[in-house]
């Protein structure tokens, strides 16, 4: 079996396949289908300082090769997570990355501090990119200075690796990536969902109660791959790539574009074991290339600078 173990932001991962925040709850539902210890990491659903109720229904609508969601970050709050879900998740031999959400810089820092004090968490992913809430979320994700402020505040509040999750709803994703890297990000997740909407032409009204939703699934994959490519050329920190990954070949695209790890999201909804299928497919792909996994990271880039993969001996400098 080919070795896909990899280090990212100081974490040793047994493999680079994670499950994306918001598509996997806190793990319980899918633990009925497979052993979560087989995953490189679980990125749990966004946690806020107090419980959030989320948006009215309809919260989801299918679109061509994709879906729009507007859940509104419904979650039971950080206390409940620490008391109920985290102890249970710790029973698995996988990395636990907790996605944090807030309506203000202070809320992000507060959640980060409370999670860090608990122990048993491997990293924090900062959701500065949710398109489905009125305040916070995306506003931090579309202004580089606001994004940097959140990252700095979270960095001060925690000793854990900090991984901002970028919104794709920006003109210049590389600029956002540089801003959060300069603010101290240890790695970067990209991308969150694309803002979209669907209209019920019979009712002549938006389908989603929230009007707008976040587009995910295979429909967004080329957009996400492009953004990983651009960010790989702009920053040094490792990237976690996601956006419509359905199988190992899709994951390989992200790796070749520059992702050091990948996350499976919407595919979980269609096949509960999708992440394992992605892992098996990626293993087969790496084996077929005859290269090591590390050698494949960013390998599609025609010219690689020393800042990205400094250890790669055969880099064509």
């Amino acid at each position, binding site marked *: 079996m080919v070795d896909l173990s990899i280090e990212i932001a100081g974490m040793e991962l047994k493999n680079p396949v994670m499950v994306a925040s918001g*598509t996997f709850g806190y793990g319980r539902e899918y633990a009925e289908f497979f052993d979560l210890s087989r995953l490189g990491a679980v990125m749990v659903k966004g946690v806020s300082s107090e419980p959030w109720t989320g948006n009215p229904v309809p919260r989801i609508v299918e679109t061509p090769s994709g879906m729009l969601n507007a*859940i509104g970050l419904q979650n039971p709050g950080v206390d409940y997570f620490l008391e109920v879900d985290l102890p249970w998740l710790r029973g698995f031999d996988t990395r636990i990355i907790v996605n944090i959400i807030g309506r203000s810089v202070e809320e992000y820092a507060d959640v980060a501090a409370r999670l860090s004090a608990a122990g048993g968490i491997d990293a924090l992913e900062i959701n500065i990119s949710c398109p489905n809430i009125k305040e916070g979320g995306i506003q931090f994700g579309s202004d580089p200075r606001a994004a940097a402020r959140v990252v700095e505040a979270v960095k001060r509040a925690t000793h854990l690796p900090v991984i901002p999750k970028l919104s794709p709803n920006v003109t210049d994703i590389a600029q956002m990536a540089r801003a959060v890297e300069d603010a101290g990000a240890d790695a970067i997740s990209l991308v969150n969902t694309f803002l979209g909407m669907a209209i019920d032409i019979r009712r002549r009204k938006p389908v989603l109660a929230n009007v707008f939703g976040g587009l995910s*699934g295979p429909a967004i994959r080329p957009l996400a791959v492009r953004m990983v490519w651009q960010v790989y050329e702009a920053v040094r920190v490792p990237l976690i790539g996601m956006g419509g990954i359905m199988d190992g070949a899709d994951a390989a695209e992200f790796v070749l574009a520059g992702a050091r790890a990948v996350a499976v999201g919407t595919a979980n909804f269609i096949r509960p074991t999708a992440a394992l299928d992605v892992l098996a497919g990626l293993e087969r792909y790496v084996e077929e290339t005859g290269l090591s996994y590390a050698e494949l990271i960013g390998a599609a880039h025609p010219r690689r600078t020393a800042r990205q993969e400094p250890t790669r001996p055969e880099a064509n400098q």
Partner: protein
Amino acid sequence: MAETFVTAVVAQRPVAAGHYELIAAHHPALDAVQPGQFINVRVARPGSWDPLLRRPFSLYRRFANGDWSIVYRVVGRGTEALARLRPGDDIDVLGPLGRGFVKVPEARRLLLVGGGVGVPPLLFLAQTWQGQAEMKALLGFAEAGLAFGWTEFAALGIEAEVATDDGSLGHRGFVTDLLENQLNRNEWDGLYACGPRPMLEAVARIACRAGVPCQLAFEEAMGCGVGACLSCVLPVRTEGGVQYQRVCREGPVFWAEEVYGHG
């Protein structure tokens, strides 16, 4: 315990205008399905991700050889794709999912109220609980051409009364007229319903007034079907106040008063 599995389509037959019964081959994963539970069916061709999401269906009936069926109405791309399946084709199923109807042990006389494509879980209930209680079915449809299921109830020895909005079959009016009539005339100690939301709300109100315990099976736009995505939520009265619960996980069956309160 839910699992994903592939089985074969055995047959498709029209049951009403634009409505088809899809019969699929026995699979042990579905041997213990409870009435009101559902399955999530992939409608895209193998290897295709369009249409992307699975579609939830209640079982309609089980055959002596273990084969089982669903009924669907062709309303969009997903059900159009289902309608293209032919005998021998694979069908990819995730299930059984959700919490089904509860059989109250002391309940002896059950009324089953179904509206449109909400009828199937009630036929499956009638088949599963046959002999355990006396049952009567009340079925509502927009018009005669869209009506189905009453002969299947009759085959189980269960009388089915039909109402249509336009009177083209059975009672002219709503199925809730039949329900009020039954509750006025006879003693019933359990009410089970599935159908459009306004029908469920009316059934809940009538049941509450009559003091008959009532369970309702809900439908909501769904993503994963297993409780992870939080798409299909419903405001439910709990000890901690009104909270969103997941139709796919805590439901699809809820007690009427949990959703609509007491009257």
